[in-house]
């Protein structure tokens, strides 16, 4: 699959992987790679976004994604405003669009939004003129997570094309799994979903991935094993008998990991439930790149902010 090189993003927003071209994905990853060293300089800040204002609109609990965005914004010298649903006017019944219109009065340049409703960032992007970055919407997409996962895989394997990637866990409620499936299939990787039938999405065939009801056959020859958290907060009823049973059948243990390729890496978007979907020996083992994912998350978010701050790819450049 040929990748058409891009030198800029074509849209004003990054609301999902679905609307990014392979060239745009490549550009974000290449830019992130060069931004990693900002964290290693004596002065961990560059002036690229000085004078810009970013609103972090988090309508759902988040620690690492919110911190990661905030660090990314600060390393680029943007000013940040944090807005969360608890203790704000949202808990007093204000609608998302009214909140956004009010925030517009503060002249932000970017709104980073996490929302429990799928599609909320897309709706916001239609009605406000500033750049919207999706930090996770319902069970739809989490594009920055898929991009940081892709960067982590690319660092290990050089390229995404041809990689065999197992994604196991609560796929049905996972926007991480969906964004990863979109990104990885676009970039030529093979994606294998593993979950009990009750936790597989209904549209698994449309995503272009294969699905497995047992973890062992999926692990065979895998380059990447990504374990997802069981999201009890998104399940209306529990979809499997017990945590213990889930661990026995689906958790990544050292024995199961041996079925994957010798060079396989273990990933997890966090927060981990040790002893539910992942054994501590694996989470802390040599094959784990879970902390690299966190480091790469900051760089990927910096890359998106940096690229969105410039002209679009259709816009004429001056040289």
């Amino acid at each position, binding site marked *: 699959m040929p990748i058409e090189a891009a030198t800029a993003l074509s849209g004003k927003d990054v609301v999902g992987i679905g609307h990014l071209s392979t060239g745009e994905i490549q*550009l974000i990853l290449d*830019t992130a790679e*060069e931004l990693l060293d900002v964290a290693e300089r004596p002065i961990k800040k560059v*002036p*690229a976004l000085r004078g810009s204002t970013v609103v972090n609109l988090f309508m759902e609990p988040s620690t690492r994604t919110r911190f990661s965005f905030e660090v990314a914004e600060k390393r680029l010298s943007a000013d940040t405003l944090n807005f969360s649903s608890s203790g704000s006017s949202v808990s007093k019944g204000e609608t998302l669009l009214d909140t956004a219109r009010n925030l517009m009065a503060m002249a932000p340049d970017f709104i980073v939004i996490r929302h429990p409703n799928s599609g909320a960032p897309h709706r916001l992007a239609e009605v406000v003129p500033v750049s919207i970055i999706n930090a996770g919407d319902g069970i739809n997409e989490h594009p920055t997570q898929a991009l940081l996962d892709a960067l982590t895989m690319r660092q290990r394997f050089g390229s995404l094309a041809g990689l065999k990637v197992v994604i196991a866990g609560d796929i049905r409620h996972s926007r991480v799994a969906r964004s990863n499936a979109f990104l990885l299939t676009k970039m030529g990787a093979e994606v294998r979903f593993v979950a009990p039938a009750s936790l597989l999405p209904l549209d698994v065939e449309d995503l272009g991935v294969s699905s497995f009801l047992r973890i062992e056959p999926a692990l065979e020859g895998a380059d990447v094993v990504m374990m997802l958290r069981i999201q009890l907060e998104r399940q209306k009823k529990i979809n499997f008998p017990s945590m213990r049973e889930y661990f026995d059948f689906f958790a990544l243990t050292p024995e199961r990991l041996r079925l994957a390729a010798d060079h396989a890496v273990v990933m997890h978007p966090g927060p981990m439930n040790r002893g539910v979907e992942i054994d501590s020996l694996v989470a802390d083992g040599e094959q784990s790149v879970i902390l690299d994912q966190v480091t790469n998350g900051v760089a990927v978010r910096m890359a998106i902010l940096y690229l969105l701050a410039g002209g679009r790819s259709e816009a004429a450049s001056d040289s």
Partner: protein
Amino acid sequence: MTAADDGSTALHQVLDKSGMAHTVARMAAEILERDGDDLMLVGIHTRGVPLADRLARALEEATGRKVAVGWLDISLYRDDVGPWRPAHQQPVLKETVLPDSIDDRVIYLIDDVIFTGRTTRAGLDTLLDWGRPLAVRLAVLVDRGHRELPIAADIVGKVLNTARDEDVRVRFAEVDGEDGVWVGSGVNGAD
């Protein structure tokens, strides 16, 4: 196709391959005379990088000692792109590599052309976020005038009297497939 015959502008050559080699050798001699060989050369992307490599080779030939060479990407520090210039695309980032700490060392920033001085300003700001050098000097192959900031080069290969809208093209075999400097009436001013 060479810069001189691409047909888009009327360019005339002011330095050929051997002229460029002589100029680089003289610049290296001046650097040596001024600061000795205990220094680091830092080339500004794109064409400061091959120039820094050639100066390093010339210094090594003269002294027999290895010279530290780094590369600097100034994109994050430019004043002509960013959120305040929304019509302009962000530059594609390139690698910044400094082989060692720059603290308490003499650093030579290396660029192919000095024009408005804005690139040098961005280069200085980038460099100083990496440490506190003993001194920073600037070496350029071509000084074409038209400064917009109070900045001067310490080592200059060749001074060219140009009109503001003239085009100066420096080409290095490593990047462009040939060596040489051309001047002419074009639309782009290199800096």
